[in-house]
């Protein structure tokens, strides 16, 4: 029994990425297909794109991508086809819309904030900060009033 399992494993053992028989003859179309493979997640796997997954699901998905491209679908139409079936989960790059805008825009926003703070800090550093002993003008005025006579 163990031997049979072993032989089966040897026959079906994984090979990463696209198989020769899956590939299209047209190199331009195949290049487009491979670019799309990178963008699509193997939904049955652990955070892997279908380009790198050895799972059957990924193999089927790769074939499907090529069929759709052969039918003349655009890249976006292929992605939409997968999203319609499996939700946005299938996209390795979340689209920059809706709630995902937070993902895309928070870093640029943080960069602006960081630069803003840095500029303010640099300006402040041009002069030595007032010594902690120095009194504010109001306090100094009050002190003068209190110690007038």
């Amino acid at each position, binding site marked *: 029994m163990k031997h049979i399992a072993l032989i089966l494993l040897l026959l079906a*053992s994984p090979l990463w*990425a696209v198989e020769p028989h899956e590939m299209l003859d047209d190199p331009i179309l195949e290049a487009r297909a491979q670019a799309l493979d990178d963008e699509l997640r193997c939904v049955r796997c652990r955070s892997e794109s279908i380009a790198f997954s050895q799972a059957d699901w990924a193999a089927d998905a790769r074939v499907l991508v090529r069929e759709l491209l052969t039918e003349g679908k655009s890249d976006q139409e292929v992605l939409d086809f997968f999203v319609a079936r499996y939700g946005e989960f*299938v*996209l390795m790059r*979340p689209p920059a819309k809706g709630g995902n805008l937070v*993902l*895309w825009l*928070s870093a640029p926003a943080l960069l602006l904030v960081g630069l803003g703070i840095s500029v303010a800090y640099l300006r402040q*550093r*041009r002069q030595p900060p007032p010594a902690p002993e120095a009194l504010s003008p109001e306090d100094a005025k009050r002190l003068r009033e209190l110690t007038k006579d």
Partner: protein
Amino acid sequence: MIVELGHFALILAFLLACIQGVVPLVGAHKGWRGWMAVGEPAATAQVLLLAYAFGALTYAFVTSDFSLRLVTLNSHTDKPMLYKITGVWGNHEGSMLLWCLTLALFGAMAAWFGGNIPDRLRARVLGVQGLVGVAFLAFLIFTSNPFQRLVNPPFNGDDLNPLLQDPGLAFHPPSLYLGYVGLSLTFSFAVAALLEGRVDAAWGRWVRPWTLFAWVWLSIGIALGSWWAYYELGWGGFWFWDPVENASFMPWLISVALLHSAIVVEKREALKSWTILLAILAFGFVMIGAFIVRSGVLTSVHAFANDPERGKLLLWITAVFMGGALTLFAFRADRLTSNSVFQPVSREAALIANNVLLSVATFVVFIGTIWPLIAEAFSGEKLSVGPPFFNIAFTPFMVALAVILPIGAFLPWKRAKLDRALSFTWPVLALAIACGALVWAVQTGTTALGPIGALLAMWLVVGSALDLWQRTGRGSVQNRLGRLTRMPRADWGKAVAHAGFGITIFGIAALTAWTTEDIRVAQIGETWRVNQYEVTLDNVERVRGPNYISTMAHLTVVENGRSIGTLTPEKRIYPVAGMPTTEAAIDNGFTRDVYLVIGDPQGNGGWTVRTFIKPYANWIWAGVIVMSIGGFLSLTDRRFRVAAGARKAARPVPAE
């Protein structure tokens, strides 16, 4: 008996950590010298006990003691000795023990080599380090005890995950842990400084070597992991933006920021509170990383231990330490004022720009990694964030960093003239642009990636060299060469590390832009051509290894009529673990790797063969090695020791 003693030593170490975590801190607060002095012997005893416990576990693995649950689950009598030993940390419990051992080791090193640190600060550092030890030892003993016995020991074990039976991965965790846990010591220094309520140049000087030490090991660990992924996973990628990889990358990025801001603290006594914050956050990212790796909340190809309960406890540990440290920071940060003055164009300003870029880059990795969790919590919808996002969102920050780096490195402290720096750097810039243009003209494709990579690499490497040369001052070439050899090691370290960054950038750009691949079904005896290489599939045979069966292909590679030799890619199957692995065969070269992978037998008697020509692949890791050498050079700078000793004479009285 040895194993039982190891278990006992582990528990004793935990109790000692409890003492180390309380007594010196109370002593430092009350000013009781006797209590403050407890830290050092406690730290030394703790590391000895944990070393014994670790030795005992190793002994159990080496002697294949299957009455230990951990040995049964991760070892096998047929496994080669090297992997019996590395199997000790090739699993959750054992690696956690290694983590705790490293933690204790750093505490002990702070005790042994911290003689020039004021007693009170040292007591506080050791106390905080002890508290971190308490948390992780409790986690180890109560949720992941490596010394658990089995009532009915089996005759043999389940074998180690075959992917981990590899020299690259065997030494990846220990060096990574030296890095992670090294950052615990900078955390302890930061919290101790907050407790003291003061940060000065001396503090910067004590913290910097530890940060540097941690960073160097983190770099080596990450490079080993990435190198392993390159040759083991079988398609020649080196970085996959996987959550577990990101978990190691975030502390690395933030520690680079910390290294640079600590320089400003040391030289100019500015950026104090920011540096403290970075030191706290760096260890925060380490703990978040531990949570990501060990909880399984984020699916990753590197599944390690997927136990939500353990994850919850790790999250609590993270929350307590981060919450505590940041609260303390909020109360004490206003005491960390600085009187230093500098102009908007100065070394200080350049280092601030470095810190902004690195911090935001760390944030990009962070938000990309946890975004699936956030999105699911808010919308209930599952999302994926993969390499296409990170490549777009992260890369610009590294490019910006590389662009400003050589100019920033030229600027003097306090007040600089940009036109002077530019007058030094414009020839380098011209050279770099020329180099980029040349690459653009020579390359066959139309991608801008390769030329930009070459441009940045040239800019960084030549810029660093010129920076070093410029520091030799004026005079004859001979005099300047003489001065070059007498230059402080830290200056050398800086230039070397920056050049390494350039080399890595070029390696990544070249590999990404110019990899050629060929995938085909080849018959035995068939020859095909990829670029200037002719590859022939000679034969395929079954080979029996110590604990695996291999399908090994023999392929001859000829480059322009000159034979390179025979490459033997394999597919292995590990019967005990029931797992197959791919062993790519790589001919490493200075300008390219020839990378061959054998696949499945096909119906017509042929075999799937993948041929990749990967240009400049080795430069990626060579660059990291050069960066690490730069770090080591800086570590050996005598200024770290001499001036630290000078401080001892004029020991500052800590402010109450």
